């Protein structure tokens, strides 16, 4: 067990940015909200899945909506309201919370609700990275029901989606409700058992985010190479390094799709990498050959400082290094790939695990 205090939040934000694989949005507001919650209600205990009591009831909470709206109508305590709503509906009290997504600002959402509710948070999440849609969670891939789930706004409205025929329907209905609620809602899914968390969650990812952020900060402080520091914490490899020479972006059906072209520098001079993204980076090709593909993680960081670069902030001339990390094993099974493999995103590419 460890404690998430105000001090850990900056590191978690950097680490969650790296694990966000280009998506996850601007981390500033999330970090500030978590800081306020911890200042107001105290720090939060973080338990490894192994440390959970056998009879724990674990509720997954997360934000749903539009990041561009979230910088204006900044989120409040919606995740706490959703937690209370699902507790009421199921008649069960949560004994811990868990993150739905470690990549980006969703990583801190459970810390906010947990600080207020006085509950611990599990050191694990449902993605081990970032994905754009609700149904793309390891919990649901391995049979945890996604319903009932509650969606709450800041006004006191809560909607419980009692049952859907599959998690895609839950995403579709929750998103419609969210738009009516003003596009910055939170959801909470009916409690999971300890056994379900241990079997279906990607373990130890909150501490991974914290350690990645710590390593980057320490490397910067000592003038060491932040990329080496990142790779020393999380097994992976440098896929490419160069400068951004082209960026093609289009917003279709609410998602930012496009491709990013990087010309190699130094050891990669004369080569080119093209990355396809849909909010997150999904397929990386080096001189036309696929070298890393979703669900493996394709992370762009600024070559000099190790700062994660989201697709929104990409622009011509940026010096970036592309890191690849093998996906958590939960994603590389047949069931995992059916939900979050390359074909699930419409790419005619076979998944091959990144060799590290």
């Amino acid at each position, binding site marked *: 067990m460890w404690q998430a205090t105000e001090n850990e939040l900056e590191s978690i934000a950097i680490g969650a940015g790296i694990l966000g694989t280009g998506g996850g949005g601007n981390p500033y507001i999330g970090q500030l909200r978590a800081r306020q919650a911890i200042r107001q209600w105290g720090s939060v205990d973080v338990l490894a899945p192994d440390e959970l009591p056998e009879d724990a009831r674990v509720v997954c909470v997360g934000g749903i909506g539009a990041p561009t709206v979230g910088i204006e109508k*900044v989120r409040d305590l919606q995740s706490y309201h959703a937690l209370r709503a699902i507790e009421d509906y199921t008649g069960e009290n949560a004994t811990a919370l868990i993150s739905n997504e470690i990549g980006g600002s969703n990583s801190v959402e459970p810390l906010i609700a947990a600080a207020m509710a006085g509950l611990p948070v599990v050191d694990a999440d449902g993605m081990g990275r970032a994905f754009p849609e609700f149904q793309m969670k390891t919990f649901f891939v391995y049979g945890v029901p996604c319903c009932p789930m509650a969606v709450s706004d800041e006004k006191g409205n809560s909607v419980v989606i009692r049952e859907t025929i599959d998690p895609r329907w839950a995403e579709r209905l929750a998103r419609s409700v969210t738009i009516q609620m003003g596009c910055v809602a939170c959801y909470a899914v009916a409690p999971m058992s300890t056994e379900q968390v241990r079997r279906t969650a990607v373990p130890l990812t909150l501490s991974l985010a914290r350690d990645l952020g710590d390593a980057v900060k320490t490397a910067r402080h000592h003038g060491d190479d932040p990329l080496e520091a990142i790779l020393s914490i999380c097994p992976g490899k440098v896929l490419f390094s160069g400068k951004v020479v082209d960026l093609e972006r289009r917003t279709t059906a609410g998602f930012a799709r496009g491709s990013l072209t990087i010309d190699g520098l130094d050891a990669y001079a004369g080569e080119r990498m093209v990355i396809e993204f849909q909010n997150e980076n999904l397929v990386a090709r080096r001189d036309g050959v696929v070298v890393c593909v979703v669900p493996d993680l394709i992370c762009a960081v600024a070559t000099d400082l190790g700062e994660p670069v989201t697709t929104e902030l990409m622009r011509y001339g940026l010096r970036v290094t592309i890191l690849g990390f093998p996906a958590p094993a939960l994603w590389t099974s047949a069931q995992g790939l059916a939900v979050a493999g390359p074909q699930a995103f419409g790419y005619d590419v076979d998944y091959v695990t990144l060799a590290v």
Partner: protein
Amino acid sequence: MLVGVDVGGTNTDAVLMDGPALIHAVKLPTTPDVTAGIIDAMRELLAELPADARIDAVMVGTTHFTNALLERRELAPTAVLRLCLPATQLLPPLVDWPGELREAMGGFTYMVGGGHEFDGREISPLDRSEIRWAVADMRRQGVRAVAVSGVFSPVNGEHESAAAAIVREEAPDLRVCVSHENGRTGLLERENAATLNAALGELAGRIIRGIEGAIEALGVEAPLYLSQNDGTLMDADFASRFPVLTISSGPTNSMRGAAWLSGIRDGIVVDVGGTSTDVGALVNGFPREAAVAVEMAGVRTNFRMPDTVSIPLGGGTVVVPDPLRIGPESVGYRLTEAGRVFGGDTLTTTDVAVAGGRVQIGNPQLVAGMDASLVHRVIAEIQDRVETAIDRVKLSRDDVPVALVGGGNILLGDDLAGASHVLRPENSGVANAIGAAIAQVGGQVERVYSLEGMGREQAVADCSAAAIARAVSAGADPATIEVVEIDEVPLTYVPSNATRVRVKAVGNLPGLHRSAG
């Protein structure tokens, strides 16, 4: 004729211009009394004014208000009234402010019912009685200025306007600023900017009247304009209402001046100083904006600075021959004592440039025996670092024109990679003052539109009309106003087609005829 003055951290520069011709330039050290420095510089200029000529306008880019915030002095006790409940309570106004600045302004914050959703619906009705209570409390606390911020006021500013009307009714002596007048989405940043603006209001009135009075005392009867951080001007009345817009106008003025001097509208400006080199991109004669928010005195705002890359390399940068190391140390303004060609004992980039025959300054004999291969390596390394910086700020891989300005530009050759051609305009040492003098009057508006019942063209037309109206109220001649920039970004994850539109309009000063700068 026009007078342009730009107050920098080190120097106050001023120029006298007759149409496109630079008549005279002055450079004086910036004094603690900024207004006195402006007037001293103007007095020197006026001595060069031809007998039959008159001054038509005075344009000033100043650091008065930046200094006031940094030194936390003369700030009015200020309240923030946010129209938001029940939303956004976890992050109250002033949430991420440095404690000292917050205290200097009193730290009074109020949140009441009101505000809008992204699609223009009300979050809740405006809570008028709560606003009246808040105003009564402000009066008790001795508050003198109020910033009113409403959630999604860039979509719908009605609640802010109505709340401001209540404040004026209840307390006519309170100065009120509404955030949607500087509307960019980003509640905290916009609210912060409105709050800084409210706190600076009293001081702004005093300072601007002071400058006007001093100009008059010099015998000049001409209107005063102030530089805004987006490279345009506002008249004295408008500036008294929006002093926060003057903050960080200096870097923008420098790039605008360089654009004008070199004739480059789209390209790169490389400003080589004594200690560092700033490289930025010009788009349509204006600097490209950085994507990240600007911090003013530790407060995040919704303003944007020019997107520049700064590298520690200038004319005074120290060169260590073996093993070769260039910078980051610099002798800075002491170059003319410390540099070898000036009889000093520090080897600088300027000495190497002289040894390499790039320029003749100081005494070239003092570096005559320098190892030719060292000279070659240093010159190549300098060139390489600047070329890398140019490449980082370029907008595409095509070669573009490059303007080299600043005293250290002699370090660089004309064969820069990435440059279609290299220009070294004269008088680039006062580019910032020229940037102030040549500016047009501008207005910029950003709003969010739901495209449910409205086409994109309609949204852009509405935003353009608002930007034009704003340029007029800032003092532009309505007949000359044109829209120079339209930026449209669809909001992601919102299937209902909401879009953010930003429009910038500029026009000439009344009575002056010239084309877009």
